């Protein structure tokens, strides 16, 4: 199963903000963490992650700094700001609503059995 692209994109912001709320991190580690959290189901590309990080930084949800690691190498660390935390809380409320509603709908219902052809449609 692959999560649809639109859904990946829609959930990207709360996911990044949520991960960074745990503590500062950098691009590669964030990608690894998402991979780990979703059991490899979420297909994140660098083209999704880095522009998103830059956008959140521009909006003031994140701030970044270059830190030296292992000799000459420098790494860009991102940290969540107060604005970012507020945004995360807001996104969480919205997602809770969506997830809650979906759970209500699917309540007690057995998982649908999907025929391969319908799955493709």
């Amino acid at each position, binding site marked *: 199963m692959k999560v649809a692209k639109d859904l990946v994109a829609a959930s990207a912001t709360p996911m990044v903000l949520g991960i960074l709320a745990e503590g500062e991190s*950098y*691009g*590669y*580690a964030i*990608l690894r963490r998402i991979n780990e959290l979703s059991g490899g189901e979420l297909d994140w*590309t*660098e*083209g*999704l992650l*880095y*522009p*998103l990080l*830059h*956008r959140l930084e*521009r909006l003031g949800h994140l701030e970044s700094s*270059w830190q030296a690691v*292992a*000799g000459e*190498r*420098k*790494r*860009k660390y991102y940290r969540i700001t107060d604005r970012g935390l507020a945004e995360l809380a807001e996104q969480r409320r919205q997602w809770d609503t969506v997830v809650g509603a979906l759970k209500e709908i699917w309540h007690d219902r057995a998982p649908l059995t999907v025929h391969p052809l319908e799955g493709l449609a």
Partner: protein
Amino acid sequence: MTAHEGPQELEAQFEQWRQYVLRRRELQAVDADELEDHLRGSVDELVAAGLSPDEAFLVAVKRMGSLDDLSREFAREHSERLWKQLVLTGDSGSPVGGTRSARDLWVMLGCAAGAVVSVKVPALFGLSFADDGSFYARNFTLFALPWLAAYLAWRRGAGRTVIAALAALFVLGAVAANAYPLADDSQSVVVTSIHLPIALWLVVGLAYVADDWRSSRRRMDFIRFTGEWFIYLVLMALGGGVLSAFLFNTFAAIGIVPEAFISQWLLPGGAAAAVVVAGWLVEAKQSVVENIAPVLTRLFTPLFTAALLAFLVAVVWTSHGIDVEREALLLFDLLLVVVLGLLLYSLSARDPLAPPGPFDKLQLALVVSALAIDVLVLLEITGRITDEYGGTPNRAAALGENVILLVNLAWSAWLLLSFIRRRTPFAALERWQTGYLPVYAAWAWIVVLVFPPLFSFA
């Protein structure tokens, strides 16, 4: 830490990859740093999982996906990067370029200030714009163009001979403009005021091509420079007009009328400075912004061709001879100049190796129709040249220009035709145009230096 075998090789691969990334306009040095760190993280992990550094690098690059997709995603967030911004102090990413263009900026400001001062120096000797209009009309290019030439010569690192030649030519221009006893209302004053700027502009051209003045490519660069410079100058003039209007009206609203300041200081000083600033802008942005002159040429070549053909058809249809009024020759000279400009600026932007296309045929049609019109005009004039049209510097200069442009365009049309028929390479046309530049210079100098005595300062 990553590579135990061939770490240098791996580093070389990273470097190569980085160069590849940096070629993308959407991706900047900081992004390359960030992505490189990502790639290194990926490689480290794969090496830890047992791959050799080489394999790890390949897999990691592959995982990152195509650079096209990556740049597209970056472009969405950083769309401003696709609008290349002209950073006034140059590429902030490279410290070397930064200091170089910072120095450039200071030299330019010095030259612009020099131009402003030059405009105001004659006022110290009691020459005012109002009373000595003729003096300023003859000399206005002598205030600003030497400074533009100085800036360009500095930028090109011109040798002593070139600098001496430039100085000598500007002195010669000053002498030509002021030494002859020309009455303020004489035709020769007008003719000199028109031709001296042309002569001096080509002196600026000498400064522009100072590093290699024989090279056809460099001369073509000067032609490009001229077009862009002119466009920048017009844009600055528009901005200056808006500024003056606001200045005037806002101050007038509080009862102070800054007319004297605007007409005596802001406009002349601003114009002189704009000449240098425009030159600097073109130099600074030549690799940054798409040249606009060729774009305008592309837009207007079909329109002018249609207009000229319509005119020709109308002439034949009505069998009405062209009415050669006093200013007619000048008008048709200007027409030839416009056609030549359209030709030059599409040449300047054309890939010399591209095969002939429909646009070349369109250009041929444009040039041929302009030639046909001009021949009609010349036929009309030759009858009268000896009586009512001969004998004045105005007519002689206009006729001379007409002949010069006619020769240029006729041969250009021939070269275009052979190019379309694939007989000659495109470069022949380019060489013809760049080789012709000295002809304009020679003619302008003849008009400025020889005409006044020849026509006994009429």
